[in-house]
């Protein structure tokens, strides 16, 4: 096993994965209604191409990609379009969404494959198929995969890095994918390697997922150069830049992308999804979601139709416990609390975590006592203590000079702050203010 360097700093939040790590993935029943927001990915939202009253089959396109950095949206269940209107989005806003009344017992209509078989396809055909399937990164950011697969001509990619770290507490989506679908992971890697023209792939997995590492090793093919690398359990091991440092000992320069050091990083669930769409011939219409936390009755790893409302998902897991307090989309370190339980599961929703009163952050914070714990935690070596004090007085331009742009909002500083100062929230607000002033 090759030796690894390790990214510096970071924090050690409790793992909390034991709730669902051993539970096999199961399929949840179709809900009565599916809501498909047209904004589910990084880039431009899709454009609706259906109207109320239209009949859609499972896999039919309901939203057309608008531009290159965008992605189409497909119906995840057969039914009738009710309306195309504003609907609560998991990020707290309202977004245009296609609402479909589902016919849960409608048979899957016999139809030709939407996505062709991948064998024998050229690089361009593969990328086009991935684009047609609406595949985006499933790790949370939901960046359109076809853009990642076609790096600019002047970039040379040497290594494909597969991110199986899943360093967020509670979540086991990637974990179960690696344990149950290792072949899909490797098929997806083959397809990506062919698209990118690289001959080397590395899978980084945190050591706390011994069964996933064993499953990947057992299924590892010999004809491609792919290696599995157990990594130290530390948050945020799964952040792109940290993972590249840990695996390859290369630092992505400030303000640059992984491809500037010859690397493309893809999340393991997204890789498996690429294989899945070519396997089934259907576009990306369902994903694996971990529903967990002390506030849910039956924690589970579920195959969920994209667009399932949070309330239906919670019901499929036995409902909330009486002391459930906060419901989070994504992991507890970077995920967002949902305001409205009508908000649907998106392509990028890795998990739904229900926290109880005990788990939640207390409301009160104290003055900064300059303990320096945030500086020792920050994985990109900025000074959250200084940035925080600048953010409180809204000196955003000065914050930019202090590398605000390098902050990836991982939350290590807020996690470790004994005074409970909402540092990453302040930085998020500062970034938004900077964006706004630049746009103006």
């Amino acid at each position: 096993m090759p030796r690894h360097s390790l990214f510096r700093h970071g924090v050690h939040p409790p793992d909390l994965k034991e709730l669902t790590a051993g539970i096999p993935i199961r399929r949840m029943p179709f809900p009565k209604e599916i809501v498909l927001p047209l904004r589910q990915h990084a880039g431009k939202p899709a454009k609706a191409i259906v109207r109320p009253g239209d009949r859609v089959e499972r896999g039919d396109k309901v939203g057309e990609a608008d531009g290159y950095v965008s992605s189409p949206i497909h119906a995840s269940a057969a039914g009738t379009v009710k309306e195309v209107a504003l609907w609560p989005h998991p990020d707290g806003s309202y977004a245009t969404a296609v609402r479909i009344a589902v016919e849960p017992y409608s048979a899957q209509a016999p139809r030709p494959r939407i996505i062709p078989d991948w064998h024998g396809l050229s690089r361009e055909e593969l990328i086009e198929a991935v684009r047609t399937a609406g595949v985006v990164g499933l790790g949370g950011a939901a960046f359109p995969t076809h853009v990642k697969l076609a790096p600019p001509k002047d970039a040379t990619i040497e290594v494909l890095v597969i991110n199986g770290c899943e360093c967020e507490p509670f979540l086991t989506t990637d974990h179960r994918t690696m344990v149950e679908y290792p072949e899909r992971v490797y098929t997806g890697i083959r397809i990506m390697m062919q698209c990118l023209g690289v001959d080397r792939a590395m899978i980084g997995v945190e050591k706390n997922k011994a069964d996933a590492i064993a499953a990947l090793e057992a299924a590892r093919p010999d004809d491609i150069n792919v290696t599995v690398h157990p990594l130290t359990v530390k948050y945020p091991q799964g952040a792109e830049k940290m993972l590249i440092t840990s695996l390859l000992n290369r630092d992505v320069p400030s303000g640059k992308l992984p491809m500037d050091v010859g690397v493309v990083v893809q999340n393991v669930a997204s890789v498996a999804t690429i294989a899945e769409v070519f396997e089934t011939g259907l576009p990306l219409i369902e994903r694996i979601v971990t529903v967990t936390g002390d506030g849910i009755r039956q924690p589970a790893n579920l195959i969920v139709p994209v667009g399932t409302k949070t309330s239906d998902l919670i019901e499929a897991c036995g409902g909330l416990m009486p002391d459930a307090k906060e419901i989070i989309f994504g992991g507890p370190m970077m995920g967002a609390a949902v305001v409205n339980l009508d908000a649907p599961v998106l392509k990028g929703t890795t998990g739904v975590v229900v926290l109880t009163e005990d788990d939640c952050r207390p409301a009160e914070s104290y003055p900064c006592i300059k303990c320096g714990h945030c500086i020792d935690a920050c994985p990109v070596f900025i000074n959250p203590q200084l940035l925080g004090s600048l953010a409180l007085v809204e000196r955003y331009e000065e914050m930019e000079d202090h590398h605000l742009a390098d902050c990836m909002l991982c939350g290590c500083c807020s996690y470790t702050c004994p005074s409970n100062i909402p540092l990453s929230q302040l930085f998020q607000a500062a970034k938004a203010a900077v964006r706004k002033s630049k746009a103006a």
Partner: protein
Amino acid sequence: MTLPHRLITASPHLRVRDSTPKIMWSVVGSLVPIIATATWLFGPSVPLVLLAATAGATLTERVFGNRGSLGDGSAAITGLLLGLSLPAGLPLWMAFVGGAFGIGFGKLIFGGLGQNVFNPALLGRAFLQAAFPVALTTWPARTGAWWTLAGDNLAWPFISPQVADALTGATPLGLMKFEQVPTGLWDLVVGSTGGSLGETAGIVILVSGGYLAVRNYLNWRIPAGIFITVAILASLLQAVDGVRYAGPMAMLFSGGLMLGAMYMATDMVTSPVTKVGSWIFGIGIGLLVVLIRYWGGLAEGVMYAILLMNALVPFINRATQPRTFGARTRLQP
């Protein structure tokens, strides 16, 4: 479907179990063995002086501080640390004034917790040293039974303490500096010497501070920097002149060095935020302590060494900013 009585907060939704009040009260807790040792050594004057200093500090915080700021425990620490840096025989009203000054002019005037430049306890002590130099350097000799009060604890304000009549002893550092009489190392370690309340039992302070360091409530780099610097310089100087200069162990365990290094210099608010800065800070204090002890007009220099370095902390922080991930140059604040 809406969420009745649910919580909506920003990420991260988890946090460490430590909190600022927890850190502060842990520091208070870790002082208990030191206070017990001091009481055993000096008698009932110890709790009285500590109580007076703490009352001065907490009352000032209560009256002039932000609402509810007493609960974070920082005022109590200031009072206790100030008390531990005072002689047992000090009139109680002076201890009270010192505590009030430390909090009022050492902390609240800057804007309360986290804003102050100087360690409030040491500022309170510096004030007392300037205002009552004789009382602050009168170390009552331990005569009579354990339960008798030392010195003039009960003197009324502005009535000169009757120190002339009392039997006084000297501190080991004073003996060494002014009379070239060394004190045995064992006496220094267990504290059977003259000195301030918390100056004496070095080994107890070391253990208490070590506990805080293990909990990561105390930045070990600062005391380490101080100890290493003092030990190296003292060894060198002892090699030059063994009669005039005490050796490294005597230097480390005498005077306020242990208490200062473990508890005063490591005050989070008034020490650097970076690791490199902490080393610079510690080494600077060590240098200044040796300078003042050997060549200054005073027998003891820990207090001024720390206060001087406190003043440099903003500059140290500036000079030791971290280098951002993947960036070529250091931050230029």
